[in-house]
């Protein structure tokens, strides 16, 4: 009994001491430790990794990057590792939309880092990184939520203003509700030369767009018991927004095949009036070498649905520490370092959105002399307030894959909206049952 008590108190002491040591001198000293890491690769993400050398210099540890891959291939690789029991590395890039798929392999960071450090991140991002009470990842400055880009001059054109007022009975201004988007998109559309708006049409992309529209209409994707509930009235309203614009030819006919690259190129070509898109495109749209609408781009927060809530499907990248990692303190120190203020400033300076309160303030202050950048940041900060991640089900991606062909079928007119949603809900139900989640 005594022995047991002693063991427990020693454990507690060690824990407290460990925590305190970290709080005082993060990043700490880890002489002789080597951390194996799997990181997301690609231009946009790799700039940050120059900071790894700084961490190595500060702590005396070494980082061995054993894999650097694109988002989707990294996902495949981690799943393969789980399948063959080869999770023998320490630090991995993670994403809030993918994290629920890897139950159990990542450790709870609350136990490794002091609470005041975790408080410094934006609360919504921490909430999206927490699964079943475990903080599985630290968010880096790669936060994505959408805002509405539009072409300024068509809103300033006096003829447009007069004609719009006459037709719809209210003043033409950048939209604040999705209903206004519908009106304006139809008003501006002049196929095949010019379109009112466009939307992503396949894979997780359209399912995500449908999901946020559903929430803005007051519906739920999965109900409190985790059952599919998107074939509700709100669901029909949400999906009808897509169907309506498609049948009115206010969006390009190819929109059901578009992914993010097509959307970005389309808006940059100057043939689309309004475009809900990600922050990564902000610089591209305003670059005269890349975009025809450069200098003519306005940005506002994402519009509201009939429930009064803004759409706000979001996701962020981050880093996780594996359960099987031998030196979790060192690993936690590394991922803290890669997401601390200096690191986030480094990333956010290039355009992506930060996930620390202090860095938000900093980027906005930095943008004081740049009206476009300021407008962008304000719109996205407003969007971030109402942002939420995808439902935290391990089967989310699988459900997406089953649901999106049904959404497309409704948009193309192969099925009625209700029929498509019912079929999709049935498939989603089956997937959740097969996965043992229901």
């Amino acid at each position, binding site marked *: 009994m005594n022995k047991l008590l002693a063991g427990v108190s020693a454990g507690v002491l060690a824990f407290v001491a460990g925590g305190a040591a970290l709080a005082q001198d993060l990043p700490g000293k880890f002489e002789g430790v080597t951390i194996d890491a*799997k990181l997301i*690769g*690609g*231009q*946009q*993400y*790799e*700039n940050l*990794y*120059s900071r790894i050398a700084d961490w190595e210099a500060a702590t005396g540890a070494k980082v061995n*990057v*054993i*894999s*650097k*891959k*694109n*988002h989707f*291939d990294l996902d*495949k*690789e981690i799943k*393969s590792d789980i*399948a*063959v029991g*080869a999770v023998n590395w320490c630090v991995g890039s993670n*994403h809030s939309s993918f994290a629920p798929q890897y139950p159990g392999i990542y450790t709870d960071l609350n136990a490794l880092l002091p609470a005041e450090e975790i408080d410094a991140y934006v609360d919504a991002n921490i909430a999206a990184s927490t699964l079943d009470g475990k903080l599985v990842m630290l968010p880096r400055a790669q936060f*994505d939520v959408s805002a509405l880009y539009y072409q300024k001059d068509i809103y300033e054109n006096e003829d447009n203003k007069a004609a719009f007022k006459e037709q719809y009975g209210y003043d033409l201004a950048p939209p604040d509700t999705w209903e206004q988007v519908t009106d304006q998109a139809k008003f501006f559309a002049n196929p095949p*030369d010019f379109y009112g708006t466009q939307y992503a049409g396949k894979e997780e992309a359209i399912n995500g767009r449908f999901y946020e529209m559903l929430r803005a209409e007051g519906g739920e994707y999965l109900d409190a018991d985790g059952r599919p509930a998107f074939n509700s009235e709100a669901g029909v309203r949400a999906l009808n927004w897509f169907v309506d614009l498609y049948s009115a030819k206010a969006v390009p006919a190819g929109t059901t095949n578009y992914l*993010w*690259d097509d959307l*970005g*190129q*389309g808006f*940059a*070509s*100057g*043939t689309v009036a309004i475009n809900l*898109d*990600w922050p*990564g*495109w902000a610089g*591209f749209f305003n670059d*005269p*070498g*890349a*975009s*025809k609408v*450069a200098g003519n781009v306005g940005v506002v927060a994402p519009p509201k649905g009939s429930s009064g809530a803004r759409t706000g499907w979001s*996701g962020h*990248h981050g880093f996780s520490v594996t359960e099987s990692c031998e030196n979790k303190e060192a690993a936690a120190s590394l991922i803290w370092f890669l997401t601390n203020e200096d690191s986030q400033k480094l990333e956010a300076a290039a355009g992506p959105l930060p996930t620390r309160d202090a860095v938000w303030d900093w980027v906005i202050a930095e943008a004081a002399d740049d009206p476009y950048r300021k407008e962008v940041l304000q719109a996205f900060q407003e969007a971030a307030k109402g942002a939420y991640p995808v439902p935290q089900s391990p089967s989310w991606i699988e459900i997406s894959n089953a649901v999106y062909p049904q959404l497309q079928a409704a948009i193309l007119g192969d099925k009625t909206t209700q029929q498509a949603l019912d079929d999709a809900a049935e498939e989603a139900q089956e997937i959740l049952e097969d996965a043992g989640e229901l």
Partner: protein
Amino acid sequence: MDENAGHRLKRSLLKAGHLIGLFLAMAIICLPGFWIVLSSLRPTVEIMAKPPVWIPNEISFDAYVAMFSGVGQGGIPVLEYFRNSVIISVTSTVIALAVGMAGGYAFARYRFRGKTAIFLGFMLTRTVPGIALSLPLFFVYAKLGIIDTHFGMILAYVALNVPFTVWLIDGFFRQVPRDLAEAAQIDGCTRWQAFWQVEFPLARPGIASAGIFAFLISWNEFALASQLTRSTNSKTLPVGLLDYTAEFTIDWRGMCALAVVMIIPALTLTFIVQKHLVSGLTSGAVKG
């Protein structure tokens, strides 16, 4: 006289038709590729323009400069990718050709039991869908510890290319009349000498085309490479292409620039190797 002129007219018409056909075919082949090359040299605003900009206003090498300027300045580790691609493709092609020549020669020149079955079995290994193979292969490689190594990639590509190098080379050896080699042996050559001095030169067009084909398959292969490579230790150029994609954005111009870097060596090599195809002409001469 009249008939003669009509004949000549017909001939020149045929010739013109041939030239026009050739030109059209080449144009269709080149245009999409040319468009990629052009995309790497033009500002993106002109590529995706509507109304289209047909004649580039401005040519720049910015995308290439950026590619080599190192990580963090829009660059990617292109030199490492390039090195890996060269090592893996060249080695695996050479091995696949050697294995294929041995196998093809056996099929063409020896009689043995179960020949057809074995031959068919070889071909059927190619019918296995890559996806059914990729995870188990990954599993085996992970156990052997050859994930993310040149060796692992070379092994996989040799297996990928062996079935058709065997087949193709077999076909060409069959075309070489058996009595030629026998005659050489009667003249005092060993079988080995007869092979290199008589049969090999005659089968060269087949070996050359199998070689080009194997090389291009390895050079461009993506599905297996994305599964079996992980870092700059072994990542190849096709996998590197995806460095230009982010979650929501794609740098199409950068991608095209890397594509050009991939195409130039392949094109050069093809240009050099394909002259061996010509030796087929001499085979006619030998027989005639």
